[in-house]
């Protein structure tokens, strides 16, 4: 019965047709090195040692900047919808949960920080580090029996916009200093990129926690 209904569904038929087309076309694509060559050639001016970080934070930094903006706008959009319900009170956790968290949270913070820092020379970076920090934040929120007190509204907003703001400031400074919008002076590129990554990691972690919580907290007094 269910199978027959699905077989007749036009959406399913169209998805299958598109999937078939995509498979045929993708299998037929010529081997394509992409931009690996140009990236390798420009690595000596990138300021960082890892090609992925060089692409994300330098060659195509503008994309990453706008992606950070997408994350921030997602939180703002959700905040614009209204206030969130408090998380229902949970039973007080036993000693095992407590002890585990006491070890896990510091480890997550160190791991997150390490991932951000190592991004300049190896796999890692602001998004990975921010995701680990964000997960630690969500875990902390869920394990406490009551709502954790939130930092003041201004601080939340500052933390949320830190990454975009740092990126925009550095990018605009590059424009004014003659390196082009979103350009770094080559000598400072490493330090500027690391600074942006740190700021971005804080914003990304906060974004994830705030997205998990849903609407704005009762303390964010936006529209009295």
């Amino acid at each position, binding site marked *: 019965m269910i199978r027959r209904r699905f077989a007749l569904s036009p959406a399913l038929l169209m998805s299958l047709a598109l999937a078939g*087309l*995509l498979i*045929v*076309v*993708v299998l*037929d*694509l*010529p081997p*394509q*090195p*992409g*931009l690996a060559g*140009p*990236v390798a050639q*420009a690595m000596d001016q990138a300021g960082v040692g890892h090609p992925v970080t060089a692409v994300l934070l*330098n*060659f*195509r*930094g*503008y*994309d990453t900047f*706008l*992606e950070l*903006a*997408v994350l*921030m*706008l*997602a939180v*703002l*959009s959700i*905040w*614009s*919808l209204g206030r969130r319900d408090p998380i229902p009170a949970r039973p007080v956790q036993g000693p095992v949960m407590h002890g585990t968290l006491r070890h896990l949270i510091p480890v997550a913070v160190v791991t997150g920080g390490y991932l951000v820092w190592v991004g300049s020379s190896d796999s890692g970076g602001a998004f990975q580090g921010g995701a680990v920090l964000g997960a630690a934040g969500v875990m902390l929120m869920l394990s406490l029996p009551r709502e954790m007190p939130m930092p003041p509204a*201004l601080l939340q*907003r*500052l933390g*949320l*916009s830190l990454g*975009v*703001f740092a990126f*925009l400031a550095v*990018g*605009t400074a*590059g*424009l004014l200093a003659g*390196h*082009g*919008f*979103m*350009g*770094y002076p080559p000598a400072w590129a490493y330090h500027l990129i690391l600074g942006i990554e740190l700021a971005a990691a804080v914003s990304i972690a906060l974004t994830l926690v705030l997205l998990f919580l849903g609407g704005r907290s009762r303390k964010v007094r*936006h*529209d009295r």
Partner: protein
Amino acid sequence: MPWMDVMADMALAPWLVILPLAGALLAGLWPAAARWWGLLTGLLTLPMALLLALQVHAHGPMVLYLGGWVPPLGIALVADGLASLMLLMTAGVGLAISLYALGYLTGETGGRWFWILWLWLWAAMNALYLSGDVFNLYVTLELVVLASVALVALAGGAAPLVAAMRYLLVSLLGSMAYLMGVALLYGSYGVLDLQGLGAQVALSAAPMLAAALMTVGLMAKSALFPLHVWLPPAHGSAPAPVSAALSALVVKVSFYLMLRLWLTVFPALPLPGLDMLMGALAMGAVLWGGLMALRASRLKQVVAYSTVAQVGYLFLLFPFLRAFPDGWKAVVFFAVAHGVAKAAVFLAAGTLQRAAGHDRLADLGAVMRGRLKTSFALGIAGASLVGLPFTGGFIAKWLLVQTALEAGLWIWVLMVLGGGLLAGAYVFRLLGPAFQPGPADPGQPLPAVMEWVPLALALLTIGLGFAGTPVLSLLTRTLTGGGG
């Protein structure tokens, strides 16, 4: 002029992204002052956009490599005739919407959020117009979608939330289709730069599929019939400044992107039957939108269905492009004329709705007679939608008809003229209540700005009636796939 030479050395294009983005960030940090950040942004962005258009007109297209990284490695910002015209229209209509919102949103909950989201939307649209990279365009498109959906939901209540959700789903589907196209293009050619892709795209399966996916995705976002069902509830139930921004600007954004792709990336692809298919859908849009606008009983619903109809004309792009390479310019002029006129109509409708406390067409007579400035604005802007002489809409339709005649495409001439008749019918239906005898009642007291801004925009549509030559000459400074 010496000052022009000085200005030519200054890279204006990035500032058109930096300014609204900084405004959006500051408005988010200090929501209590959000309206003033919004106003400041509008006041700074308009002269900047005007200067950029003058610069492009004087010196031709300007390409800027972000961070100094030349494509294919880096991302290019392209300020050419088409981009600077869209920036200018957005800045003009955007400033008008901002001024209107100052009066419309006083002391109302949600006012601050309007400003924050609206500035984000503005920044995202500007970034999209200037981007010269297919993936970067996707990111800007996402920003536009997020901000627009949140703005639709701002009205609160069940109907706007349902409309916003439907809008979100359709937009995401469109974005995904676009992204699949980007992946196919990168997989085929290993570059993301528009010009670089344009130089390489040749007739084969992958770029054909990419072109089809991207075109259909953007069609859904532009609400081309029959993918229009999300538009009337979304545009009709939003607050007036939001409706104006969505109908006048956001719909044009996806049209702009489609035009940009077909001008630079896909000119070498003759998709069989595309021009006839798009022309048929365009005709369906003009007919269906016009008929629904005749049937709708509420003011804002009529205006929203009018957008469905007018989007149809934008898609004459495809038959025109097939007929001869310059055919797109008439369509772009139409997009600008429609943007200004539709913003005026939606803002005037918002004023009447606020004054009367409702927007049921049958009961608006007294308020329309009591608020003559607004009714006058509605009338002039409506005349531009119909295409009556001395308005931008007249020149736009003149150019469309002229293009169709030069190409020998009689059927589109009939469509433009017939669509004009339909538009005439629903615009007279809008204005009808004002001419019935009866008492005049200005309704609720309103800030003066809510009457003057629609009037100013309506007068601007008359100004556009005389702007055909400079606009077309600006559009000749557009980068296309042919290299110039």
